[in-house]
């Protein structure tokens, strides 16, 4: 390992400037690994990271150490039970293939046409790195709605107001901006299943508003199938937990009644 670091030293020039000091070690501390691995956008991103971290010359990649390190990362990902995309394994196979081809002796006759087995990999890495940078540059441009406001002053109109149209994707867009701002990700993970529960919560509340008190049983609609029964039950339990309804039963096996919490204060 140390030998390789030293070997990398002569080419340790980055962005045209000599590097003041080499990174102390080539490995990421294991506890930081998970966070780091999840931040990679794929095998190319991981490879670029390994290459840049060690200041390897991307045009003359030492395949043996790079392949070994890549495989170690992939192995660590597996051990950590991180969801490992198939692309990582395909890349592992490709690295090993390139490495073994570089070990093969070249037939002297073919020498001139022989292509560096790394050429395609290098091309892909450079292209991806370029795109990565381009993506950052794009993200830095002042954007209307984000850094810059498009001016649209109020227009006084006498004609009848036309109603705005909204489609489900507009709601997705609104939620996206909420998420980014409020860091809702942790506390507001709403799945489709939960959404149907919440829909039924509203339905029960709406019904209890008209009816004041309902018998537990009549809130269920067995004809709509088991899934709806379960969701309705979950909705009632959630409403109870949030103290939005009161569920009462006079004695064992007596009918269960459901009403709005403190409905009598109306």
């Amino acid at each position, binding site marked *: 390992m140390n030998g390789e670091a030293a070997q990398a030293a002569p080419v340790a020039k980055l962005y045209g400037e000599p590097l003041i000091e080499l990174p102390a070690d080539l490995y990421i501390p294991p506890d930081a690994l998970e966070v780091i691995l999840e931040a990679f956008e794929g095998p190319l991103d991981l490879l670029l990271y390994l290459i840049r971290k060690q200041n390897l010359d991307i045009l003359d990649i030492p395949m043996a150490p790079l392949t070994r390190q890549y495989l170690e990362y992939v192995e660590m990902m597996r051990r950590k039970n991180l969801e490992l995309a198939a692309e990582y394994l395909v890349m592992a196979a490709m690295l090993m293939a390139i490495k073994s081809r570089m070990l093969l002796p070249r037939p002297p006759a073919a020498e001139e046409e022989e292509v560096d087995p790394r050429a395609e990999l290098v091309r892909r890495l450079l292209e991806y790195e370029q795109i990565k940078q381009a993506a950052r540059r794009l993200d830095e441009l002042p954007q209307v709605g984000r850094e810059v406001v498009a001016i649209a002053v109020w227009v006084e109109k006498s004609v009848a107001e036309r109603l705005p149209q*909204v489609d489900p994707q507009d709601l997705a867009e609104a939620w996206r901006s*909420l998420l980014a701002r409020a860091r809702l990700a942790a506390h507001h993970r709403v799945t489709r299943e939960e959404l149907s529960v919440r829909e039924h919560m509203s339905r029960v509340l709406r019904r209890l508003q008209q009816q004041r008190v309902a018998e537990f049983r009549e809130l269920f609609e067995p004809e709509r199938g088991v899934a709806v029964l379960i969701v309705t039950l979950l909705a009632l339990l959630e409403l109870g937990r949030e103290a939005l309804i009161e569920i009462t039963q006079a004695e064992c096996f007596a009918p269960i009644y459901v009403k709005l919490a403190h409905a009598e204060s109306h």
Partner: protein
Amino acid sequence: MLNPTDARRLIEAALLASAEPLSLADLKRLFDEEIGADTLRRLLGELREEWSGRAVELVNLASGWRFQTRPEFQPFVERLSPERPPRYSRAVMETLAIIAYRQPVTRGDIEDIRGVTVSAQIIQTLENRGWIDAVGHRDTPGRPALYATTKKFLDDLGLRSLEELPALEEIARTLQLEPVTPQEPPAEPAAQSGAPDGSGADSEPSAARAA
């Protein structure tokens, strides 16, 4: 302290950039230092004066100040945009999204999620449209109304049930939710120490994003 011209330019831009009228309290927030209501009113008066000869004017409404086109201008606007569909403000759309995904919710719940106050006007816009209604009250002080989406909401959006709304996990996945900082530091030190130009700084915005 800003000089009066700069202060006027600041107020002007803020009013032009805002879709809704701005109150004196809103305008005060623009300034780092304390600024009196009298000073603000004087600056607004000067601004109105400055705009007096134009097709856009500064008006003082119940809820605050706003720039709007003069009524005589309407015919010209119609020539320009005969079919431009109107849109709800972001505030209205976000409120609707919260009610749709988190129902039943109170106005306080919505404010907690949005991190800003939700005006009665926004709720009313959605109620008038028939897209939300109060389905009960939470049993807490003030007995706030609980809002839910209506059947008309589903109909107008072409949905059979709320489950047909776009899945939230998928929306979250398209976002830069967490600061990328944990990933960047190990990757960047090499680049930063050597980068003579702006390229090293490219990592900065992602860190700043966290702030």
